[in-house]
């Protein structure tokens, strides 16, 4: 589904990704682990097209379509979703309004009909209940004054509402207590399907106890330094990242 070949990217003139190659087939969950500063967040921003993240070499395709040529919103319409490490506060815009506007923009870009208000609200109530989100919270300004855990739950709520095909979870476990981690993981696991693929970026193995990956990759110094099965995560937890240090 997602093919990354020899990807080089710079931020502010400094090369962060240095020839990264990775393939995530449909239906699989791949974990990206690595030390701080290895380029994990850079990878998530390059895949979603953030300004200031310059691709200097290499290709990224989603179902054989060149992703790098598209604007961030066009990539979103193709089904790319990023759960942010630090979700952004949007004052004055209720969560429901934000997601409905985004959903309809995606539908429009794909030439689909708008979602009717009743259908949208019905679905929102179901998803909110499954993530134990108080529906009233969705009427408040998105993320404004929310706790770290609430913000992360809102990310998963948005993900479930937008029904993307390719999911990137950037440090979703950071700032979560064990109960919240369970709820969030269940939300993510509910989205696993043969048509979807996921990239789970994490520093710790803990999250992977809840979201079981098919493959684990070590990202170090801008490249994939090692790949393996779930056992690689445990090995990293025990041994640390020292042997991958540049």
């Amino acid at each position, binding site marked *: 589904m997602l093919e990354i070949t020899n990807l080089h990217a710079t931020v502010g003139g400094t090369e962060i990704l240095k020839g990264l190659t990775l393939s995530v087939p449909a239906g699989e969950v791949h974990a990206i682990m690595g030390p701080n500063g290895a380029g994990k967040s850079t990878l998530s921003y390059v895949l979603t097209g953030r300004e200031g993240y310059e691709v200097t070499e290499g290709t990224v395709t989603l179902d054989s379509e060149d992703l790098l040529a598209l604007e961030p919103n066009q990539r979103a319409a193709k089904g790319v979703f990023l759960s942010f490490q630090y979700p*952004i506060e*949007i004052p*004055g815009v209720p969560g429901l*309004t*934000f997601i*409905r*506007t985004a959903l309809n923009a995606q539908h429009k870009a794909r030439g689909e009909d708008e979602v009717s208000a009743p259908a949208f609200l019905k679905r929102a109530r179901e998803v909110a209940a499954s993530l134990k989100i108080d529906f009233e919270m969705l009427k408040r300004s998105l993320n404004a004054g929310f706790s770290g855990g609430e913000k992360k739950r809102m990310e998963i709520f948005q993900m479930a509402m937008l029904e993307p095909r390719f999911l990137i979870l950037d440090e979703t476990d950071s700032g979560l207590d064990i109960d919240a981690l369970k709820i969030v993981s269940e939300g993510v696991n509910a989205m696993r399907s043969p048509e979807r693929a996921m990239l789970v970026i994490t520093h710790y193995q803990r999250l992977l106890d809840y979201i079981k990956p098919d493959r684990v990759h070590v990202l170090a110094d801008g490249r994939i330094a090692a790949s393996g099965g779930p056992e690689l995560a445990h090995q990293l937890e025990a041994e640390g990242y020292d042997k991958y240090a540049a």
Partner: protein
Amino acid sequence: MAAVTKTVEQVKALEAYEHGFVTDIEQEFAPKGLNADIVRFISAKKGEPDWMLQWRLEAFERWLALDEPDWANVDYPKIDFQDAYYYAAPKEKVGPKSLDEIDPDILETYKKLGIPLREQEVLLGVEGAPRYAVDAVFDSVSVVTTFKKELAAVGVIFCPMSEAIREHPELVRQYLGSVVPTSDNYYACLNSAVFSDGSFVYVPPGVRCPMELSTYFRINAAQSGQFERTLIIADAGSYVSYLEGCTAPMRDENQLHAAVVELVALEDAEIKYSTVQNWFPGDPVTGKGGIYNFVTKRADCRGDRSKVSWTQVETGSAITWKYPSCILRGDGSSGEFYSIAVTNGRQQADTGTKMIHLGSDTKSRIISKGISAGASSNTYRGLVSTNHKAANARNFTQCDSLLIGKTCAAHTVPYIEARNATAKFEHEATTTRLSEDQLFYAMQRGLSKEDAVALLVNGFVREVLQELPMEFAVEAQKLVAISLEGSVG
């Protein structure tokens, strides 16, 4: 939210300034320039009684002795007051009796502007047709006022000012100039001498005005100024909600709009006054042309427990210089000011409010949202004061500024004068830049850059939009989005 999506679609379908067309109709002008004879000419054209002419001439004499003020944070070349027309009116044989007698070109103009003048449609029950009465002012004269009969049935007077001077002289003489005296300031004085038309509203005691009242101002003629005069009187225990909208064609030269609006609220009365101002802002790059909007708006909460609420959405004008204010004279009276001021291109705005607490237990609330983009400058200037006799005065002020891009400016100039120790005044101010983080976040969810800006800005101004009557809130949201079109690279 459907409104946001709608906004976005409408924005895409529109030019930067959609009201920039000129209506080709036969106009009648007063000779160019300004002197006592021009004042007499205007008065005669209106068929005014002598007391009105004397009032104007007195104002004109005072105006000659005044100096143009220069304290606002705005910059413009000196105005040549002799190089303008002070009266322009569509030519007509006799005053219009009904809509059928109005020049179809004018009706077409208002139709383009989306003004529901065709009250027949409304009365015939066309589904979804809004119910609000409209007074339309075309350059110097009011061309039509709708719903008059229905309003008259409950005793509400809603008519052009020129008609009120003839038909209700006792009310006009009692209240005209009682809130904004002729000598109040340079532009108010000029207005008093040469005002041509405007709207007059009187709501009798205990009456709740059954519909929104609205005036639509349109400057059409070239090189003409518009000097309208609006007077609204809410008698004891009454309520009225009033809205004004403004547009003008695109022209290279600057045009002056110097209006005076006076509101009087007697005991337990409430007036809600909303403005959606979209005068031509001038060329965004060169700054050429556009309207100078130098307006004096003031409310006198004369009666105990009276209430006045100003809501303004300012997106147009080359220069906006105005401070809708409340004199809280009655004990327990309250004033509110909700403002959205958007500047883009080379626009300049110096706007805010004055809350003058004279009575005891008076309350005021100020929510100001300034948005600056392009190379524009946006200043909030406000005064909150109490005199020594006003016990327990309370004010809450919140001024938020949003900057888009790197070449714009925002200023906040609050003046607070508390001469009574029991006063409680709170002031909060923030300045933020529309962040790359927010834009990227919204785009990652599927919104285009323009849509993301519109959504974020609508969030920023939501508190104020909520104060507008429903139909106008949608209109205002659309205007804000259009005004900021292309402001993010």
